[in-house]
C-alpha cells in the first residue's frame, strides 16, 4: 500500500516546508498563511460534507462568528465597544503589547468556544433538515447572520471594525527578541500570524486524522451512508451530527479570529460572512481534492490556492466568472475529485481490495435497461424523500 510508504516522507516534507517557508519566501508569507487557512476551511467542510454527508453551504457562519467574537474580546477589556466602533472615529485608541496579546489570546479562545456554542444551538434547528434543505438552510443562516450584524451598530454595523494594530517591534517585549531578528512591525505581524495559522492547520489535520480512525469517524460514515438505518441501529445521530458540526465550528472560529487580525479590518458582508467567496471556496476545494478522504481537502485546497494566487490578478475582473465555471465543471465532470479519481484508477495504492467477482457480475448487468430502471427507481426514491 503506497499510502503507508509515502506517508512519512510527505509529513516530513510538509513540516520542513511549513517551517522554512517564511524564511525562504519572505515576500509570500501572507499568501502561504492563507494557504493554511484554506486547508482548515476544506478540512472542516469535509468533516460535514464528505464524512457525514451533510453538505453545508453556510459553514462560513462560524468563520464570521469567530471573527466578531474575537474582535469584541480584543476591544472590550480596554475600551467601550460601541464608542470604539463609532464610524466618526472620535476615540483615539492604542494598545500596549500586553493588552494586544492578552486580548488576542482571549479572543481566539472565546471565538473557538463561542462557535461551538453557536453550532450546538443552531444544530437543533438545521439538523432536522435533510439533503438540499440542509444546504439551503445553512446558506440562509450565513446570509442572515451577515445581514443582521450589518444592522447592529454596537459592532460597527455595515461599516465594520478596525482591529487593534499589531504592536510595533520597538517595544522591549521579550517576544520580539525571539527568532525573528529585527523585523519591522508589518513583517513581524506577518510572521506571527503565519506561525499561528500553520499551527492551526497542523492541529486541525492531526485531530481529524485521529478522529476519522476512531469509532466516532465510523459513526459519521454510517450517518452518511444511511441515516435511517444508523438511527435504527441505535446510533444517536442528532448527537453525533451536532458534535461533528461543533468540531468544524471550533476550528473555523479560530481561523476567523486569526484572519480578521491578518487583514486588520472587518465588515460583515465581504470579510466576515463571504458566502459566495470563502463559503463556496471551501466546498469547491474539498470536492476538487476528493471529498470523504483525509488528504483530498488538503490537496484540493493547495491546488486551488496556488491556481487562484497565480491566475487571479491576470484575469482582470473575470476571476469570479472563472470561479463559477470552475464550480460547474468540477461538479458536473469531476465530482469524485483528485483523490477519488486516484482511488478508482489505482485502488491498490490505497489498500482497497476490489472484488473482481462482483465487478464481473456488475458488468453483466450493465445493460441499458437495467441501468435505466435503476436510475428511475433511484430517482423515485429521491423524489419521495424530497417531498
Amino acid at each position, binding site marked *: 500500500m503506497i499510502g503507508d510508504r509515502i506517508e512519512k516522507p510527505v509529513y516530513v516534507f510538509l513540516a520542513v516546508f511549513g517551517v522554512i517557508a517564511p524564511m525562504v519566501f519572505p515576500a509570500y508569507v501572507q499568501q502561504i498563511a492563507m494557504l493554511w487557512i484554506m486547508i482548515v476551511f476544506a478540512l472542516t467542510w469535509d468533516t460535514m460534507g464528505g464524512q457525514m454527508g451533510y453538505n453545508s453551504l453556510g459553514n462560513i457562519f462560524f468563520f464570521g462568528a469567530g471573527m466578531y467574537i474575537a474582535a469584541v474580546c480584543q476591544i472590550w477589556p480596554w475600551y467601550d465597544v460601541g464608542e470604539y466602533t463609532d464610524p466618526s472615529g472620535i476615540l483615539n485608541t492604542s494598545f500596549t503589547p500586553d493588552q494586544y496579546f492578552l486580548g488576542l489570546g482571549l479572543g481566539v479562545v472565546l471565538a473557538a468556544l463561542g462557535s461551538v456554542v453557536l453550532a450546538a444551538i443552531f444544530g437543533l434547528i438545521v439538523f432536522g433538515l435533510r439533503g438540499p434543505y440542509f444546504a439551503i438552510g445553512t446558506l440562509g443562516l450565513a446570509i442572515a447572520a451577515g445581514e443582521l450584524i450589518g444592522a447592529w451598530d454596537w459592532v460597527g454595523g455595515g461599516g465594520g471594525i478596525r482591529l487593534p494594530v499589531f504592536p510595533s517591534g520597538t517595544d522591549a517585549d521579550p517576544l520580539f527578541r525571539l527568532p525573528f531578528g529585527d523585523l519591522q512591525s508589518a513583517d513581524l505581524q506577518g510572521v506571527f500570524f503565519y506561525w499561528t495559522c500553520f499551527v492551526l492547520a497542523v492541529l486541525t489535520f492531526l485531530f481529524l486524522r485521529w478522529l476519522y480512525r476512531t469509532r466516532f469517524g465510523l459513526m459519521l460514515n454510517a450517518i452518511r451512508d444511511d441515516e435511517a438505518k444508523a438511527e435504527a441501529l441505535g446510533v444517536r445521530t442528532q448527537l453525533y451530527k451536532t458534535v461533528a458540526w461543533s468540531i468544524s465550528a471550533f476550528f473555523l472560529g479560530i481561523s476567523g479570529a486569526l484572519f480578521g487580525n491578518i487583514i486588520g479590518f472587518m465588515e460583515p458582508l465581504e470579510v466576515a460572512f463571504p458566502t459566495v467567496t470563502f463559503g463556496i471556496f471551501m466546498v469547491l476545494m474539498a470536492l476538487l481534492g476528493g471529498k470523504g478522504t483525509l488528504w483530498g481537502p488538503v490537496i484540493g485546497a493547495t491546488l486551488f490556492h496556488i491556481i487562484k494566487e497565480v491566475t487571479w490578478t491576470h484575469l482582470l475582473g473575470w476571476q469570479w466568472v472563472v470561479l463559477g465555471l470552475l464550480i460547474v465543471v468540477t461538479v458536473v465532470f469531476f465530482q469524485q475529485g483528485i483523490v477519488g479519481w486516484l482511488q478508482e484508477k489505482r485502488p491498490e495504492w490505497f489498500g482497497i481490495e476490489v472484488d473482481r467477482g462482483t465487478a464481473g457480475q456488475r458488468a453483466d448487468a450493465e445493460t441499458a435497461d437495467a441501468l435505466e*430502471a435503476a436510475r428511475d427507481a433511484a430517482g423515485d426514491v429521491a423524489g419521495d424523500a424530497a417531498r
Partner: protein
Amino acid sequence: MASQKPAAPARTGFLSPAWLKSSGDGWTLLLMIALVCVVLVLISGQAQNNLTILQVAWQQNIQLLLDGLFIGAIFALAAYGLALVWGVMNVKNLCQGEYVIMGGYIAYYLYDIGIHPFVGLPVAIVFMFGFGWAIYVLVIRRVIDRDLFTSLLATFGIAIVLQQGLNLIFGPEVQTARSGLPTATVTLGGGAFTFAWIKLTAFLMCGALALAVVIFMKRSRMGQAIRATAQDARAARVMGIDTDRVYAFTYSLNAAICGAAGVLIAMIWVIQPFYGITHSIRSFVIVTAAGFGNLPGVITAGLGLGVAEQYSGFVLGADFQQATVVGMLLLVLIWRQIIENKHRRVVE
C-alpha cells in the same frame, strides 16, 4: 390494532385552515413568529416610531399593502417557475434569481437604447427561453439524475457566473427601466398615498402571464407531457414521451417565466447584478411553504411574502428587508421540520 391512529393527513399547503385547526405546532410557530416580531419592535425605538406613524397616518398602510401585493405577485410568478422545475425534474434551481435579474437587464438594456420596456417583455421571454435551453443542454442534463446536492451546487455555480458576468457588463449600480406611465397621489381622509399606474399594469401583466402558463399546462400537448412526466417519468417514457425534451422544455419555460418576472421587476422596482440571490431565496421560501402543484398556495405565499417584506422594510428599516427574507426562509424550514416530525409521530 387499537392504538393505530388515523392515517397522516394529506400534504397541505401554507395557510390551509384545515391544517392549522388540526395542529398545535402551527399555532406554536405563529406564536413564535409573533414573539420574534414583538421583541424586534421592543428593542428598536425607531421601529416604535414607525409603528406610530402607521397608526396615525393610516393611509401608509394602504401604500404598503398595495406595494406588497403588486411586488408579491411577481415573486409568486418566479416561484411558480421554480415549483415547475422542482416538481417535474427534481432540480433545485439556485440560479432562479439570476434569471430574474437577467430578464430585468434585458429590459434595462432595451430601455437604455430607447425601446420601451413593454417591448422588452416578449424579447426577454424568447431570449431567456433559448438561454434556459442552452443551460439545460450544457449543464442540467448532466446533473439531473445525480444526487440532489450536485444540482444545487451546479446551479449555484451558474448563479455566480451570471451575477459576475452581469456585473462586468452593466456595472454594480442599481438600475431601473422607466415605463413613463404616470404616478397619481391619492388623497384619502386627510392623508395621502401614491399610486403608480405601472405597478397596476405590471400586476395585470403578471396575472395574464400566469394564466397563460396555467392554460398551457392544462391544454397543450407539451403541457400534458410535462404533467405526465412529473407524475411518473418512467411510465411517461413507456408511453412514448421524450422525457429529455420535456425536461429541456420545462427548464427553458422556467427561465422564460423568470425573464418575464425580471422585466416586471425592472419596471416597478430596481435591479442590480447581486440582487439575484435574494430572489432565489424568495422563490425557495414560497415553494417550500406552498408545496408543488399548489397554485393557490404559491399565489397566497407570494403575496404574503411581498406584504411582509414591505412592512418589515418600513417598520424595521430598509437594512432589515433582506434579513426578513432570509429569516422567513429559516422559519419556513423550521415549519417544514415540525410538519415532518408530526408526520413521523403519526406514522409511528
